[in-house]
């Protein structure tokens, strides 16, 4: 298994190197073409780039022989008007002098011109020279509380879709020049900005190089969100478990930074990813740090119990009612027999049916507007809660079991992890239907083997447990008390 993994890494690295060489090849080829085209006018090439882009505006000043290209909705109209009013009443000579001493950079390459106009600059063509007039419009959603990761104690702001705002939210919290930011691009046609943030001294350079290589090797376009991006760069794409921790909370991000993790930000995505993380990072919530350590340790234990309930509770119902009737306590037998006696299906089918119904309900609720979502809740509550039992499709006990495991799945703080575990649960139910308790034990074994085989930037996924570091257990499984640093 280990040899195999090493081979996987080598292949991955080879692939990355190959990608890099091809990309450099591409660049030289492109440059060659451009040198040839230099004789042609910049402006006509620029126009050919943006053929059929009718939303590109062009303002002409024939007396000055200038053309200004811009996307009206990407620029700040007021700054643009200011610039324009200056231009209107000048002569050609004056304008030339003004341009020569102005701060507007000259864009040599037509590719740069393309990039500039797309990122919200006005391009001023004067005597076939392109000037970049930065009038970028900072129009973004305002910072609002997080919807997916709510906390009671702690900061309430969340990232927005603008990378500048997101960077500011992080910089504001880390007042140190040790916070480094590496700018990278992903994609080949429509390039997107990715920032890798880390605290110097806390992060190993090899990790950063590794991540840099992986990110810049992505040639796919259309990566619109961080949660998509991490699936391009993780090491085990076929695993059901999330391997990069993504969050939309700046305070969590900063906490991870100080924890020695590398944080990635993607433009136009309100999520940041953190790596290398372990399975236990998905069990943390920012609330844990606001509570007293005893309280939050209890809550952490509660979450691990919740994972167990979500994974095996329904499966246990199936295996006990199908194979291991000896395990049922005497007092539970009457109610179980009574409610099961009217159900025509074997327990596996019954359980799968109800779990499926619940997943449908959850998915419907997640996609619907809030107001309609309430209706779904009521319909689901009545249909699942009462009618299904009265119609003899499911037993009362199963409803309790399924509801308990559904509730338990929502206890897991990370939405990604909770969804993964819900999916794994289905395989547990099926395996319990075939092999009973032995099947469940088998399934647990497979899951644990799989989890301990996962890596995240070459760091093991079950870090303080496998490999075992007993000292860290109280800070991962529990939330141990903060250590005070005393003066002197």
């Amino acid at each position, binding site marked *: 298994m280990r040899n*195999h993994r090493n081979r996987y890494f080598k292949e991955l690295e080879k692939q990355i190197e190959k990608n890099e060489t091809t990309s450099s090849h591409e660049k030289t080829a492109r440059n060659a073409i451009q040198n040839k085209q230099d004789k042609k006018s910049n402006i006509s090439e620029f126009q050919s780039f943006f053929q059929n882009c009718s939303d590109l505006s062009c303002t002409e000043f024939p007396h000055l022989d200038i053309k200004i290209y811009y996307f009206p909705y990407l620029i700040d109209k007021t700054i643009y008007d200011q610039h324009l009013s200056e231009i209107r009443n000048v002569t050609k000579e004056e304008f030339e002098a003004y341009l020569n001493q102005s701060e507007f950079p000259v864009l040599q390459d037509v590719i740069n011109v393309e990039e500039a106009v797309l990122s919200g600059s006005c391009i001023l063509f004067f005597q076939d020279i392109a000037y970049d007039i930065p009038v970028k419009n900072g129009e973004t959603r305002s910072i609002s509380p997080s919807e997916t990761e709510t906390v009671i104690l702690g900061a309430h702001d969340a990232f927005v879709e603008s990378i500048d705002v997101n960077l500011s939210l992080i910089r504001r919290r880390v007042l140190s020049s040790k916070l480094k930011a590496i700018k990278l691009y992903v994609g080949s046609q429509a390039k997107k900005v990715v920032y890798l943030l880390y605290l110097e001294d806390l992060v190993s350079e090899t990790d950063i190089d590794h991540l840099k290589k992986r990110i810049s090797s992505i040639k796919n376009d259309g990566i619109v969100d961080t949660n998509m991006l991490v699936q391009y760069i993780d090491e085990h794409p076929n695993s059901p478990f999330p391997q990069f921790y993504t969050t939309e909370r700046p305070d969590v991000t900063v906490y991870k930074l100080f924890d020695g993790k590398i944080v990635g930000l993607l433009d136009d995505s309100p999520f940041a990813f953190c790596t290398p993380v372990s399975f236990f990072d998905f069990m943390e919530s920012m609330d844990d740090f606001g509570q007293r350590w005893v309280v939050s340790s209890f809550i952490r234990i509660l979450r691990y119990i919740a994972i167990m309930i979500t994974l095996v509770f329904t499966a246990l119902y199936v295996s006990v*009612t*199908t*194979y291991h*009737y*000896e395990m*049922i306590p*005497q007092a539970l*037998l*009457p109610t*179980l*027999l*009574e409610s*099961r*006696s*009217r*159900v025509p299906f*074997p*327990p596996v089918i019954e359980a799968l049916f109800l779990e499926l119904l619940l997943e449908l309900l959850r998915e419907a609720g997640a996609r619907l507007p809030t107001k309609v979502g309430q209706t779904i809740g009521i319909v689901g509550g009545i249909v699942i809660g009462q009618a299904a039992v009265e119609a003899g499709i499911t037993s009362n006990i199963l409803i309790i079991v399924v509801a308990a495991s559904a509730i338990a799945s929502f206890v897991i703080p990370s939405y990604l992890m909770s969804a993964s575990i819900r999916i794994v649960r289905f395989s547990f139910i099926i395996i319990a239907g*075939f*092999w*009973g308790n*032995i099947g469940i034990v*088998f399934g647990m074994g497979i899951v644990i083997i799989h989890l301990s085989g996962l890596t995240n930037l070459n760091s093991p996924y079950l870090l303080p447990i496998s490999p075992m570091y007993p000292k860290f257990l109280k800070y991962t499984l529990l939330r141990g008390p903060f250590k005070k640093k005393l003066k002197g």
Partner: protein
Amino acid sequence: MKKTIIVFCILLMTTGCAQKRIIDDLALINAIGYDLSEENEENLKVTATFPIITKDGKYDRKTIIVEGKSSKSAREKLKHKTNMQLESGQIRVSLFGTELAKQGLLTQLDTFVRDPNIGSRVLLALGKPVASDILTLQIENEGQNATFLEQAITKLHSESKTINYDIFQFLRDLYDDGMDPILPAYKVEDNDLKYDGVGLFQGDRLIDYLNPEDSKLLFLFRKEIIHGDLEQEIELEEGKVQQIMLSYVQTKHHIDVNSVAMDNLVATIDLEIQGDVLEFTGEEDLSDPNIQMKVEKLISDQLKSKGNKLLLQLQKMQVDPIGIGQHVRNHMKYMRWKKLNWYEEYQNMEINVNITVKFSSNGKWK
């Protein structure tokens, strides 16, 4: 990786599926009773009761009686009498009729010990006179007889502590040298189930029953049972009978065996109990130390005489539920114990009882 997956799948698939036992298709026997058949002496009469769900969805029970040569052959016949799959993994109580118990229980218990579906915590009890009477009895509004019996025996167990009337404890007492097992007995009275003392065994054979009052005294002498209630009639003054009730705790339990002389074994049971007075019908002031001491003395003497009578009775029956044999065994070499005809010796040995009763409180009064 692909190879691993294929091998793994083959491993799983070729094992085949386990036999499905979906609970609503099962007849889960919760109590089973064994008797000797009335018609044929060699045959066994087996009564099994299991819960069923009636047509209108009510929880009810069904009781089947069959006869067979052995308990498993009887079970084969039981299968023919029900439409459901018979399973014995939920057996909670096993009852034995008096006549059968007199022949010995070991042959019957064998199946309980061998069958992996049946745990060692199945409770055992005796049916007076037959087990089937108890299991077929339909008590109004009481539901399952098995549940009733289980609760009753568990209650008995919790009242007297430590003694478990389950297979484990029975076999432990049975195979322990110098200790005889006991089992609680139940009978049908006025269309109701009633606890009726304990059955005394010699080895695995039932010898006789003790009535509930005497069994209470027996529990007092057993070391494991440290809690209990005592009800005594005392006469502080001539002709004035008063009732006193104690809730006691054993503070000292010691059995001493003097075996210096080869043929003259003497055992002494030293008992000290401390009790709270729960009820006293007399007018005397128990908080007065003189009266208290007098009452304590009276109770001690009475218990002593009663105990002596009980022990004589046990000796006559040649049963040793108190475990005096253990102490005798511990006081001699193994070879001598091996040679000893214990029951004969037990019958003739001298057993003294010393009981000291002390009041730890007089109750809430005053």
